């Protein structure tokens, strides 16, 4: 997932991809309740667990451009 995140960041100036070695940043791991790795967050949204592939990450990134539903 780290490489996929980096590849997306290489492809868009809007994307910042930060990869954290979780054991070295326990305060962040605690903040985001990291219980397994890899764990991926897009704009602090719902965590994506595991090596699910770049397509799912791309989907989550593109979803940030979709206006939130009005709930109707």
């Amino acid at each position, binding site marked *: *997932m*780290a*490489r996929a*995140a*980096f*590849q*997306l*960041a*290489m*492809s*868009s*100036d*809007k*994307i*910042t*991809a*930060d*990869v*954290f*070695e*979780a*054991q*070295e*940043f*326990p*305060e*962040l*791991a605690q903040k*985001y309740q*990291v219980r397994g*790795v*890899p*764990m*991926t*967050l*897009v*704009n*602090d949204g719902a965590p994506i667990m595991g090596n699910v592939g770049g397509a799912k*990450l*791309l989907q989550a*990134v*593109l979803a*940030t*451009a979709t206006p939130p539903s009005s709930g109707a």
Partner: protein
Amino acid sequence: MALLGDEDTKYLRESFAELRSDVSVTVVTRERSRLVLVGADAPPEGAEDASAEVKQIIDEVAATSERIKVTHVDAAADAERARTLAGEHLPAIVFGGATSKGTLRYFGLPAGYEMSTLIATLMDLGSGEDMVPAEIAGELAKLTAPVHVQVFVTPG
């Protein structure tokens, strides 16, 4: 003592021979001070310990290719630049390349499986190739607001 063995170095030299453009790697660390300043904030435990190893591993990797250009930033000496590059977290490795558009940062020591991520990222950045097909690039071009992707990993 070197962190990379002879076989590792040979492998990297052969792999990086394929790099077609320069890759920039900025290593942001905090030098361990020999002075204890009363009232000064101590660096976070752990981050301080990994800084020396991060510097060493990046220097050893970069020594295998003239395409990899390393810059070191010491947060103790240049706090503003360090903060601009890495925010609040150290040690950090910030990657760049001729065609790379966004921000790529690795925080901590890339050990174990994540060492392969580091190598692959350097290869990607120096490949001179687009990382996504034109169709996806078109979709990404529609992004108007910043997107922050955070990946938590651990040495495997």
